[in-house]
């Protein structure tokens, strides 16, 4: 069989994503038929009227379903893209924002605002509504830098150091978040525990649009760095001899990566393993060339996340599962499998 070209794979992923978005818009405790969705969307654009008995449906659709599907897609794209990006920066295929501490650091930063925001300790008050994303970014950046520095200390990535540093930083951040939820008064505490598992139930337009508005410009900047990340596979020195500036590249991409992951985490909580599964599937699908991998893992991440969210909404209807449970359930075995393949390659080399 002839292998599909990069563009064909990406077009295919985009088509699947469109289908999955339609499914995600219609499925759930409220079911919307495709025709109804079309009428609602047309109504939103000022075309066609809605029957009075549909007002409640329309309300559910526009204030709950639409922002949720948007947030879910953008979060999935963020995690898929971030996994690919971090694997490129660490020059190692077993990294993702959950393992490297980025998500846990962001969660700690965000929960500090949730719990301490109204107390006497409220040092974030001057930031106003920006406090949550700003603190999430600060926490995510700090955690990522610690893991990155330890893992790449002597010019090359040490897998053991990476995993151990990730475990330690994750443990520290989780302890911090746990402490905060312990001292918090209801209902904040419930929010935090829920949040460690990752969920889209709290999606609203404000959050969804904020995540999207930060993601899109970062996406454009990141997609231009495919060649740079390819050259970085050779190591920092050899990338420099090809005319790239590896130190500046790594620094810039770490900031962009932490930015998109932190803001998404601040909204939906920690969703592990998506950043690991998606790049791995895309590598198997076609190539490890980052010029292909970056757009493909953004599309693939959105696709996977929408699909998982539909499952999360349907499996124990009318209640729903936090998506983080499902991603961990699928992702952890895949992670073990990747680790095994990685060890085999090292052993045979």
């Amino acid at each position, binding site marked *: 069989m002839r292998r599909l070209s990069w563009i064909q794979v990406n077009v295919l992923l985009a088509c699947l994503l469109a289908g999955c978005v339609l499914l995600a818009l219609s499925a759930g405790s409220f079911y919307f038929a495709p025709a109804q969705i079309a009428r609602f969307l047309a109504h939103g654009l000022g075309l066609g009227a809605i029957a009075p008995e549909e007002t409640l449906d329309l309300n559910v659709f526009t204030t709950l379903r639409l922002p949720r599907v948007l947030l879910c897609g953008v979060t999935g794209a963020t995690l898929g893209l971030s996994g690919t990006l971090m*694997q490129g920066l660490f*020059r*190692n*295929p077993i990294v993702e924002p959950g393992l490297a501490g980025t998500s846990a650091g962001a969660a700690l930063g965000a929960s500090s605002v949730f719990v301490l925001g109204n107390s006497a300790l409220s040092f974030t008050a001057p930031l106003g509504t920006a406090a949550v994303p700003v603190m999430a970014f600060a926490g995510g950046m700090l955690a990522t830098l610690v893991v990155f520095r330890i893992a790449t200390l002597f010019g*090359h990535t040490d897998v053991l150091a990476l995993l151990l540093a990730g475990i330690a930083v994750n443990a520290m951040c989780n302890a911090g978040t746990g402490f905060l939820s312990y001292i918090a008064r209801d209902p904040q505490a419930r929010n935090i525990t829920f949040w460690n598992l990752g969920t889209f139930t709290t999606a609203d337009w404000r959050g969804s649009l904020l995540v999207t508005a930060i993601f899109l410009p970062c996406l454009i900047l990141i997609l231009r760095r495919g*060649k740079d990340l*390819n*050259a970085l*596979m*050779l*190591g920092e*020195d*050899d990338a*420099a*001899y*090809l*005319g*790239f*500036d590896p130190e500046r590249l790594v620094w810039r991409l770490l900031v962009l990566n932490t930015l998109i992951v932190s803001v998404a985490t601040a909204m939906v909580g920690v969703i592990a393993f998506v950043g690991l599964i998606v790049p791995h599937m895309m*590598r198997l699908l076609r*190539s*490890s*060339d980052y010029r292909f991998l970056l757009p493909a893992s953004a599309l693939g991440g959105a696709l996977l996340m929408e699909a998982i969210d539909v499952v999360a909404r349907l499996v124990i209807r009318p209640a729903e599962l936090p998506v983080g449970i499902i991603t961990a359930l699928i992702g952890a075995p895949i992670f073990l499998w990747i680790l095994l393949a*990685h060890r085999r*390659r090292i052993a045979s*080399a």
Partner: protein
Amino acid sequence: MTIRLEAVRWATGGTTIIETMTLAFAANRVNVILGPNGAGKSTLMKLAAGRLRPTGGRVLLGESDMLTLDGRALARTRAFLSQHVEIDFAISVEEVVLMGRYPHFSRAPGREDRRIVAAALELVGMAERRHRIYPTLSGGEQQRVQLARVLAQLWSDEADPPARILFLDEPIASLDVHHQLHILETVRALAAQGCTVIVTLHDLNLALAYGDRLIFLRDGRLQAIEEPGGVTPALVQRIFDVRATALGDADGRVLRFHL
């Protein structure tokens, strides 16, 4: 184009690795850097290639300071083959060699770039294995793929090619003797076509056979610059702490070493 080091010194964390040295590499010749382990050979290469910023002094390419040059423009005329390039990702041989063309195209490679990649793979004898996955190759094969990459980076079919500089850091360490000679022949042919070659070697006899100028380092100090004919047993003793006997040979000299 000549590369000159003017009073260059390099120190890290209070330790001086390269003592102040002034030295010019011979243009369009094979310059071989020799010295015992820890002499500072790799550091000297990185300084000369513009990867390290000298602690003192400056590195000049022609008349301009290496550090003021645009990285991408420099990458079209200067390439560097590292000792060992390990890649943890499943990427094909062809894609690795194509990276050598990155300084030459901005979005997608052109037909010319594809042709050069194929020619470079042909030259190192890896054309049939171009679709193989790089991490599955043996160490020697990986080294040949990397050589193809730097050759593609500096490739020129012009009758009067632009000045180019190729650095090779122990390029033959992991190769069998056939491929050792093959690579050194390739490198010598490149010098004949107007490419300055700067290479570190551990094999003194291969250095004598293929080098035009031999640069001897020890303890971060420049000890001697000699043509192959000027290398005496006394010099070898001083640099490497071994006794050397010259054996006569029809087309050159061979050294035998004793402790």
